[in-house]
């Protein structure tokens, strides 16, 4: 179960977790995936990204995987991050919380019903 005091997640933390939902990534890869998820609306800077990662590691939402080069970029070794089970539960809980908020907004504002 996700710890209730972690919710709601801040947008950077939420999107970082989403980025790690399908595969392990290194810091730069996380930033690229977050930019894709949000159509470049959220472009994480290094300070924000690693600040979030530090707190997420401390909270047990993510863990360090190993250091290895990213073959697409170059042969520099990078530290990869992986989502934990707690991280997965937490991002699920946050997604459903957001879904609830969105449906409440739709009901109140009479917005078009999405897909």
């Amino acid at each position, binding site marked *: 179960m996700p710890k209730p005091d972690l919710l709601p997640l801040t947008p950077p933390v939420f999107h970082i977790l989403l980025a790690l939902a399908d595969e392990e990534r290194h810091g730069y890869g996380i930033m690229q995936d977050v930019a894709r998820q949000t159509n470049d609306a959220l472009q994480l800077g*290094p300070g924000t990204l690693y600040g979030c990662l530090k707190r997420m590691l401390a909270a047990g939402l993510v863990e360090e995987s190993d250091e290895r080069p990213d073959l697409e970029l170059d042969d520099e070794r990078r530290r990869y991050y992986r989502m934990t089970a707690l991280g997965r539960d937490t991002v699920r809980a946050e997604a459903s919380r957001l879904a609830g908020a969105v449906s409440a907004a739709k009901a109140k504002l009479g917005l078009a019903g999405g897909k």
Partner: protein
Amino acid sequence: MEDPGFVRGLCRVYAAMLFAYPRDFRLEYGAEMQQFFHDRCRELVRANSGCSAWFRFGMRNVMDWIVSTVREHRAAPRQTSGARKLIQEWAVTLLLFLFVTTTMVQAYVVPTGSMENNILIGDHMLVEKVGFSNTGNNWTSYVLPNRQVKRGDIIAFRYPQDVRQTFVKRVIGLPGDHIQLQNKQVIRNGQPLEEPYAQHTSTHADDDRDNFPTAAAPAAFANHVQDGEVVVPPDMLFVLGDNRDNSLDSRYWGFVPRDYLVGKPLVIYWSYDGSTKDFETWNIEHLEDVALHFFTKTRWSRTLTAP
């Protein structure tokens, strides 16, 4: 692919900016953050980005840097040792104190009665050093306070015979002034001065003290006497103590060079009734005396007055 020179430059700048983060955070993530920054630069180069893209990249990074340094410092655990904490707490105070006491004010205690009854033995005063340190001959005179020496000013200056000592006297003659004393009466440029601040303790008129200059005047005046008057040379001052009959002043040792000026007495912060030897050299009897008689021998009415 070799990086263009400016990218390497940017990366170096960013590496330096990392020092704004808390030490622990920098050691843990600094290398990765540099790598991240480098990747982003390479991506922009590869996309052949124009000036505006680089500008947006730079602004975004600066914003990120400001926000995240503040956040990390706030989050950083305060595990500083006692001594380090003490230094941190007092650092600003200490810096201010050093700046103020070395360049702005200096505390002096007056051990002699040469300026009685305006400045007494045992007056502890702060001397303001900024105003006179600026002789007004360069650009600083436009931005820093500068005070012209006026006749009648009380000044603190280095004693020309022994620059380790600081004297306090009153300015009587500016460069070009003609000065003489006739039977205790100061005559400046032909006009007898009215000096309510001056004090005379004897009626006897001494040569060279009360009639000045005479043939026995100090050698310092040798080339500066015209028709029985001393003429103050350029960049020099002629000073006298208010306690005219007991003051070791210009009459005895000559002019004060303008460069020897220290400042102007600003305020008496403590005045304690004691003797010359108590304030000239440190002695245990004086300390004991202060401890026992602080409240009765402090001249409270002089506290925080301007000399």
